[in-house]
């Protein structure tokens, strides 16, 4: 595309330039807003408008994170939470997709199990807390299970509705070619659900964080959720804020990984 640049009309070049400027403005405002908020937060604690004991402040958060790092526990806690989240996320996505495929394959199975799925979806997973502790103990296993519980049903429902929405005319076309059910699945149903798969991943990432932090609130002795609960109990708001900020960064990073995956996968379809 770039090599055609000189073939563009003046008007189009102007259009491109305007777009670029526009984008730069948006980014400048985004970053500016963040800086402004941080500055305002910091100043209001310095000038005594807000009590840093209750609100913490950017500098105190940085110090806390620095201290955690020096203690050598920063990456330990991050690692624990990250591992639980990613493990739960991967299992929920893989199992959810497989179950959705099974439901697409067998009408009987789907019709029998659909009410169960609906009820499980409505159930607040936190209610499973005591059971999970009794079954899986108070370690990472319980947290991973909670993460799976929170994400699984959403993945199933999202993917199943995508599979079922496959264009009936395209199915008819494949059947007229003599395609087997497996061929219809592989050549049509799965590829046409790609964009639904990506949007499901975006939802599932959020679900995984909810699940793992919820799990850590319930049972854990390590991880970011644990730091937040512990910080709250001993009234160390700096610790609570620091862990929350780290969570924000991690959640955003995982989300952008999905977006990156989307770019790679969708690149070839042009649609």
């Amino acid at each position, binding site marked *: 595309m770039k090599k055609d640049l000189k073939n563009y009309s003046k008007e189009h070049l102007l259009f491109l330039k305007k777009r670029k400027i526009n984008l730069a403005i948006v980014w400048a405002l985004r970053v500016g807003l963040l800086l402004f908020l941080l500055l305002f937060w910091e100043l209001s604690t310095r000038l005594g408008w807000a009590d840093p004991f209750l609100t913490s402040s950017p500098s105190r958060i940085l110090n806390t994170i620095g201290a955690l790092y020096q203690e050598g526990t920063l990456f330990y806690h991050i690692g624990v939470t990250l591992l639980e989240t990613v493990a739960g996320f991967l299992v929920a996505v893989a199992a959810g997709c497989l179950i959705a495929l099974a439901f697409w394959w067998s009408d009987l199975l789907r019709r029998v199990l659909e009410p169960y799925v609906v009820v499980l979806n409505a159930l607040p997973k936190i209610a499973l807390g005591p059971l999970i502790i009794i079954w899986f103990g108070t370690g990472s296993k319980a947290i991973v299970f909670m993460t799976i519980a929170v994400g699984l049903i959403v993945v199933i429902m999202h993917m199943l509705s995508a599979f079922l929405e496959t264009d009936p005319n395209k199915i008819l076309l494949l059947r*007229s070619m003599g395609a087997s059910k497996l061929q219809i699945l592989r050549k049509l149903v799965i590829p046409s659900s790609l964009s639904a798969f990506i949007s499901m991943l975006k939802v599932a990432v959020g679900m995984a964080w909810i699940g793992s932090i919820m799990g850590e609130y319930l049972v854990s002795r390590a991880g970011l959720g644990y730091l937040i609960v512990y910080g709250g109990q001993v009234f160390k708001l700096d610790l609570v804020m620091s862990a929350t900020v780290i969570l924000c960064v991690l959640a955003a990073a995982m989300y952008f990984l999905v977006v990156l995956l989307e770019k790679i996968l969708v690149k070839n379809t042009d649609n």
Partner: protein
Amino acid sequence: MKEKMLSFDDVKLIYHTVRGEVTATQNLTFTVDEGEFVAIIGPSGCGKSTLLSLAAGLLTPSEGKVFCRGTVGYMLQRDELFPWRTIEKNLYLPLEVKKQLSPETKERARALAEKYGLKEFLQSYPSQLSGGMRQRAALIRTLASEPDVLLLDEPFSALDYQTRLNVTRDVSMIIRSEGKTALLITHDISEAISLADRVIVLTNRPARVAHEHPLDFDGETDPLRRRENKQFSAWFELLWKELNA
């Protein structure tokens, strides 16, 4: 004596749904000979698409017999090209499904595409093509697995008028020069007259053959020329009356 490619013998088809049963065709009898181009017109909802599904063996008749010699190729109202495949990969689809993908069959599909003006679009995605080009690609895809009978379900009705005339002409030319047997469903009387060797008029649901007319434009097969022929309007009037009887 030409051979029979497709025949319906007293065919009845009932759809069963929770709300009740719908008889889509009854006492439906007709044949299509090898190399013949037959158009079927009928009131909307009378059972035309059902008839094609029966011909393709996707539905089993409740009564009567459907006979089809050889393989079928289906072409639908919309092109149904897979948007995530290039045109070339779309052309290979029936070959893949039938496990006939080989350097020879691929070459044959590509040769068809080149012959009928799709060469430069082989590496494009369907969304980059115009409606007419896409429908043409859909036809080449149908032809790629060398079916014996083409089943066309209103393949032009989603196109705008100008494109439609051109694509109709191209498709007719391609089908005739490949010597294929074709069964075309349409609700457009002039399309039927301009394309077919024979027109079958169906009744309201349940569909049955109401009338049958061999069309002879003194061997003229070009749809646009047929439209200029003086027999054209006479046929149109007759079929219009029969369709609205």
